[in-house]
């Protein structure tokens, strides 16, 4: 079974440019998370989806960040315009319908963003 797939793995952009990250969760997983991981830190939640509904986006900087999960499967996270402080690894994770019984999330390899 394929794991969580993210692309691109690496992205280098100039500040003020837009960037987008894509995530395809494990088949059948209805919950999808986007986390941001700064260098030397633990991941911090940006947004959580239950199917196509964003049920927790309280930590998403909505002035420049946006996310969508059309059809409740894959998801896109966009930053426009990017700032120097956005340099980080963006992690996508998914969990199955019974995740509340286990709490286990399955993570992708992440997308490393460098803003120059």
């Amino acid at each position, binding site marked *: 079974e394929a*794991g969580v797939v993210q692309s691109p793995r690496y992205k280098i952009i100039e500040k003020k440019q837009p960037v987008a990250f894509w995530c395809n969760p494990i088949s059948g997983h209805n919950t999808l*998370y986007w986390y941001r991981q700064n260098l*030397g*830190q*633990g*991941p*911090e*939640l940006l947004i*959580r989806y239950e199917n196509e509904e964003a049920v*927790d986006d309280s930590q998403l900087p909505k002035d420049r960040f946006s996310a969508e999960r059309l059809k409740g499967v894959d998801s896109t996270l966009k930053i426009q315009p990017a700032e120097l402080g956005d340099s980080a*690894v963006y*992690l996508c*994770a998914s969990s199955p319908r019974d995740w*509340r019984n*286990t*709490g*286990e*999330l399955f*993570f*992708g*390899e*992440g997308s*490393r963003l460098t803003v120059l």
Partner: protein
Amino acid sequence: AQTVTQSQPEMSVQEAETVTLSCTYDTSESDYYLFWYKQPPSRQMILVIRQEAYKQQNATENRFSVNFQKAAKSFSLKISDSQLGDAAMYFCAYFGSGGSNYKLTFGKGTLLTVNP
């Protein structure tokens, strides 16, 4: 808000020896889960071990075991017979169903080095 604290930014251990990674957390919830996740240099986060708060028995998973002290809000990870492949960043994480809104809250991590 729930917080997770890992007081050891870095730890090292000799191959075949035992090492303990520390974690404390703060919560007012009564029902929650605690996790240790491993993040090798490839960056994909992998679940190591899970502990349900209502269980008094400490979880074990092969060479990995935890010391869960609920009253002290302490959750340490013991790695026995350390192997070179254990070298990674280890994150302690909290998952609750109340005010934490079904999200994983991570500590800042402990970088484990295994010396041959």
